[in-house]
């Protein structure tokens, strides 16, 4: 195994190469990154349940994005493509970790007991969303986050996950039901407490 270490000159050259080999300039990247990095990190953190892994996957996602040769039709297309890369990376992680068989181990009462900072006036109580999502299968977390935090359409999510739209709707339905059952009945009816 040979170690490759770049000299200072090579590092400087790396920037020139990057401008040629990456699909956007540094300034364009900066703007795009400022718009997408935080939602992307949150997506990675919530779907993997691991903040450190989210840090690593964030870098990997943008690296792969920069190396891609895809021509984007619009800003939305570009953003969806970025999430697609992230989704594939997360899926690879699931396969490696073999954590797909996560079962619901806690009842909604347990989660309700953890809830402490209630916010009234129509807003949801501050609950530990991460813990709630941990009760779901990784793919369910991904589906729910893309649909209900990022607002992607069913067609867009189906394309990202390589599913048919019909199958996706059924999966999304089950994921939603599962999360609602984890959260408990009082989060139903418009998110207000009963």
């Amino acid at each position, binding site marked *: 195994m040979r170690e490759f270490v770049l000299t200072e000159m090579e*590092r400087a*050259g790396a920037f020139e190469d990057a401008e040629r080999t990456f699909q956007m300039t540094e300034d364009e990247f900066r703007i795009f990154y400022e718009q997408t990095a935080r939602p992307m990190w*949150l997506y990675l953190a919530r779907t993997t349940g691991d903040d450190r892994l989210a840090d690593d996957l964030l870098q990997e996602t943008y690296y792969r994005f920069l190396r891609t040769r895809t021509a984007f039709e619009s800003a939305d297309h570009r953003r969806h493509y970025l999430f697609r890369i992230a989704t594939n990376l997360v899926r690879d992680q699931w396969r490696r970790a073999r954590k797909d068989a996560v079962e619901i181990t806690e009842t909604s009462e347990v989660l309700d007991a953890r809830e402490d900072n209630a916010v009234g006036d129509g807003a949801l109580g501050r609950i530990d969303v991460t813990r709630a999502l941990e009760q779901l299968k990784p793919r369910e977390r991904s589906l729910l986050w893309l649909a209900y935090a990022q607002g992607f359409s069913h067609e867009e999510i189906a394309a990202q996950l390589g599913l048919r739209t019909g199958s996706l709707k059924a999966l999304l339905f089950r994921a939603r039901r599962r*999360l609602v059952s984890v959260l408990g009945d009082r989060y139903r009816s418009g998110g207000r407490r009963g």
Partner: protein
Amino acid sequence: MANHDCIHEADVVAAVLSRRWDRANDELKQHAAECEVCRDVVAVASLLSADQDHARHEVRVPAAGQVWWRAAVRARLEAAHAVARPLTWLHGIAGACAVGVACAVIGIAWPSLREMASWFTFEAFGADSRVADVAAFVTDALQRSLPLAFVVAACIVLAPVALYFALSDD
């Protein structure tokens, strides 16, 4: 069979994500109250979007310049790896060729060497038949072990190359 989706789902999600749910029209709210699918959609979308809004301000991501720099350096390293890969193969092939050529040269020169050894033995020890027998035995053994020596030499050259490819990350 349960109804998995509702035609109003996209409208409900859009209203929740744009924080207009409280101001959404009564018809949509009424529908969401009665429709099991939309009721769950409101609950889940409200929860996740609120979490996203809240966490967004707390999230610390690396600076764009840092991400760009790491990506640029990595791209350069990968390019260096890509360039080095055929060179490594070339080194392996060249090594194997060198061993082959060396063995061929030894094979071709072997009769001459044997003659030289016999001459030397004769000159050094005269007509002592016992020493001549030992010398003949040694040269014969060396000749027989030539293929084995060739295999061992090839392994010595090729093993590090094979190990490199087996253990390299890419």
